[in-house]
């Protein structure tokens, strides 16, 4: 087959002119909403029941955007004379989404599956300081976390 010189230039022009008359792929966002992929990294949700305030996520976070405060509560033993046990009660679990870079290391590192990725993405604010979301908000997002995929047989 004879290869004409500069044929590539015309092929390129042909591709662009075809695209020019094609329907644009733009999703007109506020009017039309795109459904994100089920495991999209939209926001990090918290399950407070699983959290032991172990601080692993706080220490592993590359930009230190997680804040945890907790206090110990004593659990009396069910047997008489038994030793009193303690467990951590979460006071504060904040994630500063103005700092978060969505690396997901906190989700990876959590030993008790207290943190989850949620595909929710509409939480923009007018002030950066308003992006600091507290425990209640993070727990709300837990509702939007999809079911984990079924285990392989």
């Amino acid at each position, binding site marked *: 087959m004879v290869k004409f010189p500069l044929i590539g230039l015309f092929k390129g022009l042909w591709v662009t*002119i075809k*695209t020019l*008359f094609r329907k644009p*792929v733009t999703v007109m966002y506020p009017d039309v909403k795109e459904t994100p992929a089920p495991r999209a990294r939209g926001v990090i949700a918290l399950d407070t029941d699983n959290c032991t305030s172990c601080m692993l996520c706080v220490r592993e976070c590359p930009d230190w955007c997680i804040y945890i405060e907790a206090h110990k509560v004593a659990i009396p033993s069910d047997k008489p004379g038994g030793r009193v046990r303690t467990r951590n009660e979460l006071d504060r679990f904040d994630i500063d989404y103005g700092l978060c870079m969505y690396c997901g290391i906190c989700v990876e590192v959590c030993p008790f599956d207290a943190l989850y990725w949620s595909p929710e993405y509409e939480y923009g604010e007018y002030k950066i300081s308003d992006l600091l979301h507290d425990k209640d908000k993070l727990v709300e997002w837990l509702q939007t976390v999809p079911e984990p995929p079924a285990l392989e047989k």
Partner: protein
Amino acid sequence: MIENVPFALMLTFKVVVVLAAMLVVALVLIWGELKWGAHIQARVGPWYAGGRWGWAQPLADAVKFLQKEDLVPTAADGPVFRLAPYVMIAGTLAVFVVIPIGPSLVARDLDIGAFYLLAVSSLSTLGVLMAGWSSGNKYSLIGGVRAGAQLIAYELPLVLAVVAVVIEAGTLSLSGIVNAQAATSLPFVVPQIIGFVVFLVASLAELNRTPFDLPLAESELTMGYLTEYSGLRFTMFFLGEYAGMVSMGAIIATLYLGGYWAPGLSSDALKFAGPVILLVKIFVVAFLMIWIRWTYPRIREDQLQAIAWKWLIPLALFNIVITATLKVVL
């Protein structure tokens, strides 16, 4: 009646009309660039400004630019820095002195029209060079020097392509060139197809448009000579760039596409339809430029020089030889 109007008033009127027309067409072209470019990339482009199709986007951009702080860097050479955008715009506007927009509608039909055209159309590069030199910034300087190197390389094929047109038409006057095309009912794009391609490629380089936008090169030179410009002066550069497209489109339309002439129209009809026909041809050329811009990536500096010296200049010389031979033989 026209004879009674004082010369100065008439001149002012002409200048204002040309300025207003150029700026409006340039704004339309900016919109076209945004919209066509977007659709070539399967996007929708400007959408909300002005209601439909985002038609007011260039105006909104201009208003935004006017609100910006007007900065002159400490290291800059103030007067030259301030003058540069206007030098660039003046060069592109001066082209319209000799462009005939109708059978009798031409600001000044110079005998050496084609020569004048080439002379003033390279003035805008002087503005670029001034901007690059005076900014006191290494990116700007490299951008400006690149623009200078580009001018030297691409002015030659540009001139040589026009030489062939002049041989074909037998005159340097632009009205004469349009008349020569009308006389044979054949725009010069057909007999001068080699010259047309050479001229188009060289004009892209002259306008610093992709794939020859090395003086701007936002990814390596942070917009080259525009780095230090903001606000009104940046707007002037931006408008100047698109006004340059309009004037280069007008030059190509006049030299190769028959200017204000269209087949099948009497000279009386051309008096009224002429400007519209020329405008349509300008838009066709501008669309071609925009199409090329959104298709090709930027080339390297050595490739840029190689295309000019190894391909365009020999092609243009070859074209001159053919044109001259045919002119003598036929």
